[in-house]
């Protein structure tokens, strides 16, 4: 029983973790907390719904289109809405993302209506069943898919940031934009790339979670809040921190939901996080003297 809940928690947590990761990578490079992040993903989920259920495209093809669409939207938002005010006021960039959240919600309502739209799972085969002396664990194939894709994305991202010259350049921009420029790094390109990656990850999360939540304008609300929380718990500057943060929140939430109260699971897990942050305000893996210039 407890193992089953921990596994389920890891899968929910994996989704929190990539949402946190997407937020953190955009924040590290451009310094903007994207409050519209989940809602940008929601639009991608609707694109998937339209391509797959309305037009009748192939599942994987629709999946790729919606992720590419999300990447493009993210690029356009950073380039078109945030870049022009970048050097004027950092605070107004945050307000712009809040405005964008309302705008995207409105667009979704106008275009697709308020109905809950259903998306089927990609994999509907027999669940994976593990039996051992302590009990039995059942993992649906869709959850294995989620786990596999999330792990793949995380590994690819870490390899990209640490091993490629472009990834190193991106980390340099995150640390010191002015100096990076003088080293010949096109910092504006790096900012665009960071938002493209972030947007693609957000769309991926939305499409993966859509079969469970249904597709509706506020479908990403809780995932976005938990993603933020995971990022904060991890220190908001740290990529391993986001992953650990996301997975621990997922596990805590599931255990609280099972053993204490389903109604209280969000409240309770947020309370635990507040307690952790009271003891370690910089987050699990954040640096105490985090600064952005």
């Amino acid at each position, binding site marked *: 029983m407890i193992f089953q809940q921990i596994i389920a928690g890891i899968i929910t947590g994996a989704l929190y973790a990539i949402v946190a990761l997407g937020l953190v990578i955009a924040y590290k490079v451009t310094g903007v907390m994207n409050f519209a992040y989940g809602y940008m993903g929601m639009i991608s989920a609707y694109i998937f719904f339209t391509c797959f259920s309305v037009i009748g495209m192939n599942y994987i093809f629709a999946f790729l289109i919606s992720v590419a669409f999300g990447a493009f939207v993210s690029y356009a938002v950073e380039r078109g809405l945030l870049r022009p005010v970048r050097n004027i006021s950092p605070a107004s960039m945050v307000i712009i993302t809040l405005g964008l959240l309302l705008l995207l919600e409105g667009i979704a309502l106008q275009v697709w209506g308020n109905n809950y739209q259903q998306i089927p799972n990609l994999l509907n085969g027999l669940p994976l069943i593990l039996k051992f002396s302590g009990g039995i664990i059942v993992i649906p194939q869709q959850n294995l898919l989620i786990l596999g894709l999330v792990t793949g994305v995380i590994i690819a991202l870490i390899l990209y940031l640490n*091993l*490629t*010259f*472009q990834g*190193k*350049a991106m*980390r*340099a921009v995150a*640390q*010191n934009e*002015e*100096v*990076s*420029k*003088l*080293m*010949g*790094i*096109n*910092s504006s390109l790096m900012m665009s790339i960071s938002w493209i990656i972030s947007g693609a990850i957000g769309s991926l999360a939305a499409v993966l979670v859509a079969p469970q939540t249904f597709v509706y304008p506020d479908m990403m609300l809780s995932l976005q809040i938990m993603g933020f929380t995971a990022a904060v718990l991890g220190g908001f500057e740290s990529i391993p921190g986001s992953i650990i943060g996301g997975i621990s929140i997922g596990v805590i939430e599931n255990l609280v939901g099972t053993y204490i109260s389903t109604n209280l699971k969000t409240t309770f897990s947020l309370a635990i996080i507040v307690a952790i942050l009271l003891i370690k305000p910089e987050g699990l893996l954040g640096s105490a003297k985090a600064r952005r210039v």
Partner: protein
Amino acid sequence: MILLSIKGLSVRFKGLIAVNDFSMDIERGNFHSLIGPNGAGKTTVVNALTRVVPSTGTALFEGVDLLKVPAHRIINFGVARTFQNLELFKNLTVMGNLFIGAYHTINYNFFDEAFITKLYKSEQSKILQNIVEISEMLDIKGHLNAPVSSLPYGTQKLVEIGRAVISKPKLLILDEPFAGLNDFESDKLKSEIMRIKSLYNLTILMIEHDMKIVMSISDRITVMNFGEKVAEGSPSEIIQDRKVTEAYLGDRAYSRG
């Protein structure tokens, strides 16, 4: 032969004139120092040249007006600099910092990396060789894998110089390289800078307050005050220029160090 010719350079910050109609020529191969009291606008001139702050005027570098080039392209023309307050990538190792310094020399792309092509391997070993060569010369080879934030201040300064030199510049701009160093470190740095200069045929523009070093190292000196040039000449000419010594250097500057 003139490498860099600055003409009518002006920088304004919201009504405050930081640099006013400043002109200066730097001869190829020279060690040129830019001196003057605090707030004279020396660093602002360098910031304008490297496009950190917007400015008006021209700065012809081998026929290219640097003031029309975007900041991230400056290094491609052969201008590299260090900073008054260390501006290293603190979360990276010494190796990582030097790698970023060599960034603009990279001519393989993402796919070469993904498939580990021949080009990638040969370029990678070339960069690594450069990193080793420069770190040996600056005596920081033992620290290559250390995070820069763990190193002493003087060593971090060497790393910053290494990061600028590895980009193979023609003009190296040093902003107060000797500030905060003790006599022993200063002497060491001085000989290292001279060695690098002759080895790589560098032209150097240095901002510095330590007059003893400036006088001993420079071929030519430009003096600034209140955003304008007040004198220019060889060290002996500058020493004899009474206007300069009285008004801008003072007795204190000579007794320093």
